[in-house]
């Protein structure tokens, strides 16, 4: 099953299961979503459960909060994560904070689905990986799956969670295939997955970069370095223990992300690993991330800006060398 179909199945199952769940977003109905993720749901569940919305992201996202406060469990779609700039206030000042500001009077069971990432030459406003902003936003859970099985299992958990979840898909993963358990498949939020075991180097990563790291790991294995790969799956809550356990074993740490380097997710991972595993470290942790510049359109320039397998190999070799 593809990553796209896995998400579609999760949505369908949750719509089926809970009458309070409904979808809203631009072109999610009749059209089936700009990324074709919601295909067939409008036909199956009707326009009440799958609502097409105007290009009014603040109203869509703020609308989910009003719906939550009055008993529903909405799942909104923001077409590209790059568009969060027009509804950032609703996400970070309203949705993420409302439970705390209200002293626990409310639960906030809503999901904002969106997709990010580059690699398609979509240029600076359609290729970003902005998860670090939201990891820096207390009150919000941030889920970012790398496989079809996780996409399904994490999305179902996210919809059932009583907290706001930003669910970030990756545009280059939609056609990726993988095994997906049938039916009631739930992956708990906050549990990393060890994708590959190894004793030479720990790489923590997520989303599309998991695949690149796997490729790099094969190359490194051929050179005699066994890489342990940790797919974080959720950035908030963050399963740091799985990371730490691995680093205590390997003594070396590399964080790989597709977002910009400075003040990105990797910085946080490195800071935590350094603090908690200092005495186990053979050398300083490293980071591979996008360069600190807007993402250019031209394929060769984009390639020189986003992390490539080669960049991971280079960083890993330097770490173990």
């Amino acid at each position, binding site marked *: 099953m593809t990553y796209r179909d896995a998400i579609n199945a999760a949505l369908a199952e949750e719509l089926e299961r809970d009458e309070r769940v409904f979808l809203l977003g631009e072109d999610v109905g009749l059209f089936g979503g700009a990324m074709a993720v919601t295909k067939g749901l409008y036909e199956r569940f009707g326009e009440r459960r799958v609502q097409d919305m105007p290009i009014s992201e603040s109203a869509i996202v703020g609308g989910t909060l009003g719906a939550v406060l009055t008993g529903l469990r909405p799942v909104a779609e923001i077409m590209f994560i790059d568009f969060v700039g027009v509804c950032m206030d609703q996400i970070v000042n309203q949705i993420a904070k409302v439970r705390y500001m209200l002293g626990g009077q409310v639960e906030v069971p809503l999901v904002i689905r969106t997709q990010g990432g580059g690699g398609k030459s979509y240029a600076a406003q359609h290729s970003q990986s902005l998860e670090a902003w939201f990891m820096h936003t*207390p009150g919000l859970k941030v889920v970012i799956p790398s496989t079809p099985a996780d996409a399904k299992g994490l999305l179902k958990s996210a919809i059932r969670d009583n907290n706001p979840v930003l669910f970030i898909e990756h545009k280059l993963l939609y056609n990726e295939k993988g095994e997906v358990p049938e039916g009631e498949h739930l992956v708990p939020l906050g549990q990393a997955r060890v994708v590959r075991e190894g004793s030479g180097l720990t790489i923590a990563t997520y989303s599309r970069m998991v695949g690149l790291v796997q490729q790099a790991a094969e190359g490194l294995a051929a050179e005699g370095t066994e890489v342990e790969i940790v797919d974080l799956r959720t950035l908030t809550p963050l399963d740091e223990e799985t990371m730490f356990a691995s680093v205590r074993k390997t003594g070396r740490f590399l964080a790989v992300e597709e977002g910009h380097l400075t003040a990105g997710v990797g910085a946080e991972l490195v800071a935590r690993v350094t603090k908690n595993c200092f005495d186990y470290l053979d050398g300083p942790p490293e980071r591979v991330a996008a360069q600190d510049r807007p993402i250019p359109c031209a394929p060769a320039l984009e390639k020189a800006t986003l992390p490539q397998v080669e960049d991971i190999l280079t960083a890993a070799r330097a770490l173990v060398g």
Partner: protein
Amino acid sequence: MPDMTVPPLPPETMRALLQGMMRVRAFEEAVHDLYQRKLLPGMSPHLSAGQEAVAAGVCLQLRPDDYMVTTHRGHGHSLLKGMDAQRMMAELCSKETGYCHGRGGTMHIASPEVGCLGANGIVGAGLPIAVGAGLSIQYRGTDQVCVAFFGDGASNQGTFHESVNLATARKLPVVFVCENNIYALSTNFARTGATPNVVDRARGYDIPGVTVDGMAVEGVYAATTTALERARSGQGPTLIEAKTYRYYGHGASDHRPYRTKEEEAQWRCSDAIQCYGDLLIERGVATAAERDDLSARAAAEAQAAVDFAVSSPDPDPARVGDYVFA
């Protein structure tokens, strides 16, 4: 202006309106006093004294299961929608007994339980939330309504447009009530709005736009009745603009250089509570003694709220981490 052919309100409604306004005034004066006495930590509260007729005319006819979204200047709306004065005052004083256990303070008072979905520190940010409540009502198929209060300044935010447009396109049961008190902090609406009145915007959405004298509670009441009926019957939103005035500055540090003493005095002449009290006496709906009694009861409620708040414990710092996640 309200239709003058409507039948007169029942006397008990009239008295309730007067009492509601008095309750808000007494509450706000008590808040002001607490702030002056430095018993109210944080941002100087945004008081609605002067604007009570809007809160009373709108909120007193909402059902308990209706919803209301308000702003940074929302004490009056919240009180009359059904929140408890004591727990509100305790929240204003950041006490454990406050609605938000001291986490929220003046700008984040809410009680979804009684339909108060929230005040807001971000101008215009409550409007999409109100529309979401409207979507939810439509989704659930009830005949509830959500009222969204906002200011003249908020009407210049993008969220105003997105919210009114979506609510109208979907015929949602949302009533948009603008309290036009002329100023957004220091800025006169005439300097920042395309049209002289906020209600002129209704024409762009083809929804009813109703201007009411925000110092005259029965006019506010009548316009709201019509708007609520329209909303409950599935005909969509109404935009009501109440022309009103805040007596105090935007906050306590605002010495109001942008308006004249004469202007202030003139508005005070049409004080909603004074005038309506006089009117009820003139109409024979209340005696002077009854008016005094209502006033005394409002003062007593406010005083009890202050006493409760002041004597309540502060929240326990050891529990500061509660309520981040459910």
